[in-house]
């Protein structure tokens, strides 16, 4: 009872990876139990900004009890801007790990796509590190040549890149990369903007591929109590008793056929 808590994580390091994209390692107990695809709620130190910022776990170092988050600063005077100014030794309140993460076991013996787009790329890294499967094909889409995390992906599978401006890899999005390269897979794990996920869902369902999608929504509690962050579910959900699932608690990862996006 009452075994979880909001904790003051300590910033271990922070660096900028690309325009507006920051990477931060934090010292936290959450690292002990974290799994790929889970997220943490990060809180600001600004008394005007009280809601959590949900940020996916990008890497887990269970031994050193550290988590890595990679995030985009969405604008001036935002919480993420505040995060980007933290330096080693600063503290940041967090709750986590939250949500269910990607079902790794489903990949066993299969050929997989690990797909990430934009700021949905980071959670794919820890997934790539932990997944045990026949063939790891990492398909990641960026805006431009600032292909953050690419080197690390290359250590963990075969990497295919798409960029919106064509400055690296396939010009277009991750689906374009798959088509261009004629890639095939038995199972997909994906995180990214909704239009990308919609396209992947359609592709997977047309081709009868099992597909897991990590969704996003505005949150308040982050733990399943407030019903802020729902997505529509195909079947009536057993918890809500309506066609809604909580992204923070029942997700953020869902089987593509479970949800309407």
């Amino acid at each position, binding site marked *: *009872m*009452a075994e979880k808590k909001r904790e003051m994580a300590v910033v271990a390091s922070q660096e900028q990876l690309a325009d507006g994209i920051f990477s931060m390692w934090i010292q936290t107990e959450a690292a002990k139990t974290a799994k790929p695809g889970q997220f943490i709620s990060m809180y600001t130190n600004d008394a005007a900004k*009280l*809601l959590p910022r949900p940020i996916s776990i990008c890497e887990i170092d269970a031994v050193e009890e550290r988590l890595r988050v990679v995030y985009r600063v969405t604008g001036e005077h935002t919480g993420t801007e505040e995060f980007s100014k933290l330096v080693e030794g600063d503290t940041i309140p967090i709750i986590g790990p939250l949500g269910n993460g990607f079902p790794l076991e489903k990949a066993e013996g299969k050929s997989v796509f690990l797909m990430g787009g934009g700021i949905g790329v980071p959670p794919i890294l820890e997934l790539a590190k932990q997944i045990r499967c026949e063939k790891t094909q990492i398909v990641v889409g960026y805006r431009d040549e600032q292909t953050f995390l690419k080197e690390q992906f290359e250590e963990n599978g075969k990497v295919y890149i798409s960029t919106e401006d064509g400055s690296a890899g396939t010009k277009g999005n991750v689906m374009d990369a798959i088509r261009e390269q004629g890639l095939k897979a038995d199972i997909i794990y994906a995180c990214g903007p909704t239009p990308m996920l919609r396209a992947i869902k359609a592709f997977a369902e047309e081709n009868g591929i099992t597909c897991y999608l990590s969704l996003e929504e*505005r*949150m308040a509690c982050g733990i399943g*109590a407030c019903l*802020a962050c*729902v997505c529509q579910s195909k079947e009536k959900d057993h918890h809500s008793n309506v066609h809604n699932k909580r992204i923070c608690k029942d997700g953020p990862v869902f089987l593509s056929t479970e949800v309407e996006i």
Partner: protein
Amino acid sequence: MDMKVNIAGVEWNNPVTVASGTFGSGAEFAEYVDLNRLGAVTTKGVANIPWTGNPTPRVAEVYGGMMNAVGLQNPGIDLFCERDIPFLRQYDTKIIVNVCGKSVEDYCEVVERLAGEDVDLLEINISCPNVKEGGIAFGQQPKAAEEITRAVKKYAKQPIIMKLSPNVTSIAEMAKAVEAGGADAVSLINTLTGMKIDIDRKSFVLANKTGGVSGPAIHPIAVRMVYEAANAVSVPIIGMGGIADASDAIEMILAGASAVSVGTANFFNPAVTMKIVDGIEAYMNKHHFETVKEMTGFVK
């Protein structure tokens, strides 16, 4: 020194509960909070049938608080009785069931259904849109509020707390109306209606356009309303609105509340209620208050 409070005949171990809709039915928060240390758990509003709620985005951050338009999504009274009441009954805490509806009949149906259930108090959320009256909330017209109180009282076996909306000209008048209708207690405030616009996208931040503002930003308004209501009626008041620490809770009690609810602050720190219970106790010790009752309405 005694933290116990008696609200409409029901004795709570301490004066702290959680605000409806911010705590589910307690299951998720039980991982962060010892529910036995809450005076009561107030559940998310429940209707006669399941409600889907509003489209997303349902929440937005505002300066010093938040805005929500969850739209009273709920699993309906049947699943609630089957699942949520037995869960909460495992704990040494009182159960307050928050009830919503779109017509007087809806409310009465839920209240009647709960009459046979093992729950302690019912809180009637009259900020719901009254579909028959063109969507204006029951809680914005004294007459409608009095009538709905009288109607649910006919079916109620548990004491009835009427939960008031702050979006009114006179909270005292609303409190008097529900007291006249037979309310056993009054709780306030629900959220203040607000709006947020994303100036870059040139659109409303919430899918519902408007939402209810809650959190520290509304606290002084809530304290004033609790004070006014407490001076208008003799039934006990459960005070809420922006309570984020013990000092906010104590202010509410000194203004006239017999108990307090903590809502939005649970989202910044899921264990905040524990600190609030401890803080009230420390304050009572320091200021030599023997009972919460002595503190209630102490500042006049």
